[in-house]
């Protein structure tokens, strides 16, 4: 489903000296471990085709991609409903289901910049899940989440991996241990 053949990642200069190759499929949860700035996020972007590799190629058989990181913008007048509906056709049942799973109880007419960081992070994850992704990239998903929510997220990831290939970077080793099927160390 996702295949990388000897890719060099980076912007103008390669971030890593060696190339990366690999082939991944549904059911896998790959955890990426390493220090800040070694190229975990760049690697994810390259796999998601948000960025071109310097050399090598990426084969991705689906365009149902979920992506969670800190880059999504809150917008000044963006309501919760806007945030989870722009560009996605999500049903009321789906929304209610995920709101329940993440135990957030907010009116959908509220503006997102009124939410706490933790609530907003959960909302970001919900938005990506509403896309019903076949590949899900999670870049530091546990930031701002409390212990309970982390447990919940781990559980959800376990359920999701049946139908989805998941990549995740994290510095939370306990969380990594809970979800991983394999790891890549940088």
């Amino acid at each position: 489903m996702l295949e990388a053949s000897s890719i060099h990642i980076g912007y103008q200069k390669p971030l890593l000296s060696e190339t990366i190759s690999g082939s991944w499929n549904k059911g896998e949860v790959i955890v990426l471990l390493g220090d800040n700035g070694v190229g975990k996020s760049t690697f994810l972007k390259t796999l998601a085709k948000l960025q071109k590799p310097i050399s090598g190629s990426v084969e991705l058989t689906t365009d149902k991609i979920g992506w969670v990181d800190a880059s999504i913008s809150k917008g000044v007048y963006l309501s919760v409903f806007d945030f989870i509906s722009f560009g996605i056709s999500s049903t009321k049942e789906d929304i209610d289901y995920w709101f329940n799973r993440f135990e957030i109880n907010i009116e959908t007419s509220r503006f997102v910049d009124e939410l706490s960081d933790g609530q907003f992070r959960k909302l970001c994850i919900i938005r990506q899940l509403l896309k019903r992704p076949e590949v899900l990239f999670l870049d530091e998903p546990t930031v701002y989440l409390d212990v309970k929510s982390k447990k919940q997220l781990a559980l959800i990831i376990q359920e999701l991996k049946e139908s989805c290939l998941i990549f995740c970077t994290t510095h939370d080793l306990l969380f990594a241990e809970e979800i991983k099927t394999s790891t890549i160390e940088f």
Partner: protein
Amino acid sequence: MKNSWLIILVVLLFTLFVLELILGTVTIDIIKGFTEFNSVDGNILESRLIRASVSVLVGASCGLAGLGIQTLFKNPLAGPTTLGVNSGASLGVGMFYLIPGVSMHMEWLGLSFFAVLGALAFLFLLIVVSGKSLNLTFVLIVGLFLSYASYEILEVLLQLSDSVGIKSYVFWGMGSFNRANVYSLIALLLVSVMGFVVMKKYATWLNIYSLGDTELKLLTRKSITFNKRLLLIVFGIWIGLITSIVGPIAFVGVVVPNVLKMVIKSSNLNALLPLTALLGAIMVLLADLIARGAIGGFVLPVNAVLSVLGVPIIIYFLVKRISGARG
């Protein structure tokens, strides 16, 4: 809820339109005006009809263009002036009036031609200078500097011009709905319809755009730079034309979208487009009613009325908004 807003606004717009025809500093017989077209009542009614139509089109256009530019720049206080295109129109008009000989030898081209030319020239410069990547922060800065530059050039021109030119230019700058005629009305209608259709077509794209480039790349296949450039050009032409017909009136473009987004609690362009057009039209129509002296009896410049109407509204909503947001 959004539908009920739509109905309220349509009714309000219709009422104001009728009031604009009935009320004025002069009392006329409406029925006679409609039946005897060449009578005094007919002539006055005709001038009111043109003014009302121009107000509606200008208001709707300013609101929509403002909404589009705010979305594009992701800045709620951006507006039609942000691109600097209106300064281009001002510069064009300045050249027409202030350079000795230009208005003499090129009068047949008309004032609007120069205004539109100025606006398009600035738009072209903006697009060229901002380069391949179309960094919008850069566009913003370039737009700002173009405005400054045109202001400075106009200062120089004002120094060199004669008193007739200066008078004509200053009067143009105050903005007036008197100058609109059937032809400018048709031009405005065409460009407004074009603008509305483009915005409607790009509404979903712009919605996702407001969430950031990553989401845009994941969900759409269209080229981001191409779309941004296309929208910039459409908005530029639109604002240039409005400025050339009624002078620099742009305040509506900032107030209306901000107020609406706060009232309907959404940034969804699909819902906002008709509402913005309606509220913009209502605001300018009301301002023109007051400016013509139909309400209150004082005759005032439209720009002044718009600012007096708009500033308290925008401050109220912004304060409410800022105290509501967490950070």
